[in-house]
């Protein structure tokens, strides 16, 4: 029992800072999902009849399915490197709250892969024919949705850590879990684009976000713990 210990908050901050530094040194990992998101949303108008009214109808589905797939793409990287080089083991025996350290990791992951999508999302919505006044609603929906996607996805990423072909298994595990996010996110976007009040769907999205913020880290920590056995 050492006399002085680093507090959990400073340890979690250290994890966050180090992961950001690593992302600066190796930008490929987090640029990949962003590039995927931009490309796919650009492909949509090419494949569909470029009639603005029809594009506008498709926009919510296109935006949200693409967001889902790009965040799945990013999830694979969440714990993989740390598991490979033994860092996760060191987290577990650091005497710090394992959950808090994993929350810090997930937060960094969202900052690097979720937030850029939220920032690019409005542009993609414009290219799909959404009117400019719909953008605030779309932005809030994407923000709330991407947070939930990262948090819930962390459970799947933890569970598939030990699996050999983790990628496919990860999508099978996570996609059913995030269906509510897709349903309410697409609905909110649809309402915003039609110029209606999107608040009800946004509230539900926020509720899912709050639920995943409180419960998902515990489940993710338990999942990672099991995969380290």
């Amino acid at each position, binding site marked *: 029992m050492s006399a002085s210990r680093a507090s959990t908050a400073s340890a979690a901050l250290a994890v966050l800072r180090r992961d950001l530094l690593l992302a600066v040194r190796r930008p490929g990992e987090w640029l990949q999902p962003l590039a995927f998101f931009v490309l796919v949303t650009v492909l949509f108008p090419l494949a569909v009849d470029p009639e603005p009214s029809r594009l506008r109808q498709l926009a919510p589905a296109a935006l949200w399915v693409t967001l889902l797939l790009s965040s799945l793409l990013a999830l694979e990287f969440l714990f993989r490197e740390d598991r490979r080089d033994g860092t996760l083991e*060191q987290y577990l025996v650091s005497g710090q709250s394992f959950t808090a350290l994993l929350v810090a990791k997930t937060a960094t992951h969202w900052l690097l892969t979720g937030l850029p999508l939220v920032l690019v999302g409005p542009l993609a919505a414009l290219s799909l024919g959404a009117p400019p006044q719909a953008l605030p609603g779309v932005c809030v929906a994407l923000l709330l949705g991407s947070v939930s996607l990262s948090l819930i996805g962390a459970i799947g990423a933890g569970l598939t850590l030990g699996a050999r072909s983790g990628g496919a298994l990860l999508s099978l595990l996570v996609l059913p879990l995030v269906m509510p996010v897709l349903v309410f996110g697409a609905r909110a976007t649809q309402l915003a684009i039609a110029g209606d009040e999107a608040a009800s769907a946004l509230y539900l999205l926020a509720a899912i976000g709050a639920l995943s913020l409180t419960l998902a880290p515990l489940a993710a920590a338990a999942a990672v713990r099991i995969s380290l056995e």
Partner: protein
Amino acid sequence: MVSALLGHNPRLVPARVTCSFKQAWADVAKLVDAADLKSASRRGVRVRVPPSAPNLRLEVHKLHLWRGDRHLLRGLSFALDPGSTLQLLWPNGTGKTSLLRCLAGFLHAEEGQIRWGGVSVRADRDAFHWDMAYLGHDTALKADLTALENLRFACALRVPRGEVPLQAALDSVGLSKIDPRQPVRSLSAGQQRRVALARLSLWDAKLWLLDEPASNLDAAGQAVLEALLKAHMESGGAAILATHHALALPQAHCRLWQSPSDPA
């Protein structure tokens, strides 16, 4: 656990709300350990050993461990006093790594007791982890960061902020001549292992669990490891090593254990 966040940083929250926050965090902490409900319920009644306790002894009593269908450890019992070292020289596949991983808390023994300073490690795993440092096959170094950045991060996890002699630690493992801007990726395997040893010396842990610590080390590196272990033992630290070649350590405080079927 989570309560450490507020428990050790009273300045973070005004005194009036500390109490309810503490309570809330404690509840969360219990949930975190939901997989191990026993430990949560015992946490309330555990007896804490004061930091100056003279006898931080590791006691393992009748440990049984299964890996799949194999009954790997069959009723293993031993004790390790402060200032002493145990070298496991068991043959391949007899459970050296599994024993270390079990002691570290990655694996759960089916039966048996592990006590640290008289307290079951299951009752207060965090307190045990504070006192323990584990170095496995993987060095847990980030290939894209420099040696110093890796050490700085490792210290931020455990040691309160302040002047930590990072460069001195690197010097002491014979890495004073490496380019400070060089990422760990470009160091040799032996040099990476030395960085991991430097990290170990910075953590100020009472118990070291080392799995093949001498792998990839040259003769000079092995001497560095032996010097580190000697200093650790002299300051009252204990260590368990899984290794194939016994290290030269003071014989009075170093036991060699040839096979799990021998008595310790």
